[in-house]
């Protein structure tokens, strides 16, 4: 059994918050965008940070939020 983190909008599960953030910023639908808005975050700001600055700044900023917001799911990965 492992702890997986669930995207607050869709069914995506990830083993790391940063990976979940990567998934999130790759989504292009309104539901994902609206959830960000509800957390006072901006798609545009996060992506600009990720793509114009070095490091994983955009992903890390979102990962911090997801640490609080993403549900933990126990999945058997045998």
């Amino acid at each position, binding site marked *: 059994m492992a702890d997986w983190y669930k995207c607050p909008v869709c069914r995506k599960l990830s083993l790391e918050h940063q990976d979940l953030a990567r998934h999130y*910023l*790759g989504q292009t*639908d309104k539901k994902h965008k609206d959830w960000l808005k509800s957390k006072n975050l901006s*798609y*545009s700001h996060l*992506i600009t940070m990720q793509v*114009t*600055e070095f*490091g994983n700044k955009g992903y890390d900023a979102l990962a911090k939020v997801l640490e609080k917001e993403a549900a933990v799911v126990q999945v058997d990965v045998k």
Partner: protein
Amino acid sequence: METKYSVIGKPTGNVDGMAKTTGEGKYTFDMYLPNMLYGKHVRSPYPHAKIISIDASEALKLPGVKAVITGKDVPGGKWGLWRRFRELCDQIALADDKVRFIGEPVAAVAATTKDIAAKAVELVKVEYEILPGVFDPLEAIKDDAPLIHEDFENNINATRHIEWGNVDEGFKQADYVREDKFTLFPQAVVSMEVHNSLASYDKGTGKLTIWSSTQSPYYLQLGLADALKMREGDIRVIKPHVGGGYGGKNSTMPDATTAALLSMKTGRPVKVVFNREEEFTTTEHRMGLHLAIKIGLKKDGTILARECKIITDGGAYTGLGATALYLAGIFQTFPYKIPNWRYDAFRTYTNKVWATSVRGFGAVPTVYAAEVQLDRAAKEMGIDPLAIRRKNLMEPGYEAPGQYKVESCGIVPCVDKMAERIKEKWPKLEKDEGIGYAGFAYMSGGIFNWIDTPYAYSGARVQVNIDGSVDLFTQAADIGQGHNTVAVMICAEELGIGIEDIRLHPGDTATAPVDLGAWGSRETLMNGNAIKMAAGQVKQKLVDLARAKLGENIAYDLVCREKRIYLELRPERGYSYYEMVEAAIKLNDGEPLIGTGHYTPHNKGMISPAYGMGIMAMKAKVDRETGLVEAKDVLIVHDCGQVINPLGARGQVEGSVHMGLGYALTEEMPNDNGLVLNPSINDYKIIRQRDMPQIELLDVPTYDPSGPFGAKEAAEATISPTAPALANAVFDACGAEFDSNCLKPERVLKAIREAEKNQKNKAKAKK
């Protein structure tokens, strides 16, 4: 050079060279059918606008006009090449609700002459409601930017994140770290033959035949099936000679869909030919992008980490842009060992014509940045630019975690050969001359299956007739790169006959097995394998028969060579090829000898079964007064496996360098709010013959186990190093640095002044 091969490896003129040079060879452009109509598009003058109404009544009154169609007449839906991800299939035949770039077709007319069609286009009245547009990727992703496609928030079309090793740790360990930013401009394709198609729909049978200037008859068949809501099998695509594609003819484009729709509506054959302005303003090109790149090295020049970020100006639709995004990252890592690597890429929709695969497919802009940055790092670290490359080269068996594995790999001997040859070739430089280097590598066809084909990636069928002549069928596409010649050479070599014994039937979906088309340097390896297998099946039948007739020891090997089938160690014991063919057919109840071959790569990683690679050096001279850069001399050492046709490979290298030099020096597409400002050959500057440098091409032979006779990619790889080698030569000559491609004199002068200023400041600081 003595070789074990009779056909391959020998410089061979194109099998269709005579037909092409005498004008006998027919391109779609040359074709006419009785009763044929001419189709022409009504195009949007706005980059982003709602279509309120279209009134074609005046156009339809014009004598000679036979039909006008709009988006309402399109029976099918959207299409695209990313069929595994339907949401990325975003192309439409005629804009219905809104237009997304200047020049997007909103209606089309069919008329008895070209002139009448052009007049009718003027008479179609379209009412628009203008919407705000967005033209730069960094603007497109803003939260308040106008949305170009519903369901694509912030205009994000595709994203990629690839990371291996521990990048942050790599940078921490590095003795030297540098960061650079670039903006790379788009590049037009400019095939000599424009996009054009001739469609003929049979209302009686409900079947469509289309002749088209395409890189992939199969992709066109799929695109048309979606656009027209027809079965693939009811659409026959025939690809006559094609006058260039370079990546710009992979997508199904409106020349084909409109010709088909108008033919279906009128019941007459319809031809649609784009003019040169339409080529520049409404067909696909190489992506422009913003790029940030960071490198970390040890004192001795060993690369420890690299990070690259790009955001690309995708334009209004996807095309193969999402694939280009992936390959832009992957090929930036070649031909070096980069233990820690991070890549982030975002492709945005903008209100421009869209970007796609173009020769070098993704790699050209990112390789430019990486190779230019490497020289800047080498200079600051006091390391020779060739030595820093030599230090980091891949070796056979090198693996990039989760992405690719390199089997044959001759890059080390390539660089060593380069180092030797440079000393003899350019022992001394003149004033204001410099030498620039760039490494390169490229795939031999892609493994990724975004098209979601259920078929093998390449197929071929060989039929040997009673007189020994061979009919070879395949959908593989010669688009000017010489694959028809490579195909018959491989077939001839396998059967031990001459190319004159073979009649090739290429590019017809009704008669030949599927091949995915000419992109990503795939035909030699993938179609070559299929052909070799098909010919190999027939060869086996002939060998078995000869063996039985000879009654020799079962352990003795037989070969097919020089039109004979004989014992390898006792060549005098054997039969003529013709004798064996006749006997085999008679023995087979009169059935011609048939062989089929199908190839799909397996267990070869995510990218490609094999990689061609090498190193380029460019000598250039800078005029410090005018800023004019002259590319004087090019030296290339290329590992491209077993070369099938050295003459063809050489020609393709020259073409790649030519296109790369255009990217380096003269070609750009300035755009004003969606309007391409230089849509003509006069204003879009392609390198002329007289401006081409001398090119010396040296070969490092390797054998790749994935390729037919050990063959792999040749020549396409050499486009990517051309622009960075040139920029590095200028850097070597005068220290000028550039944050873009296209080193026009005004940019060069500015960079020279900047370099001089920096040098003075440094000198002052030292004092």
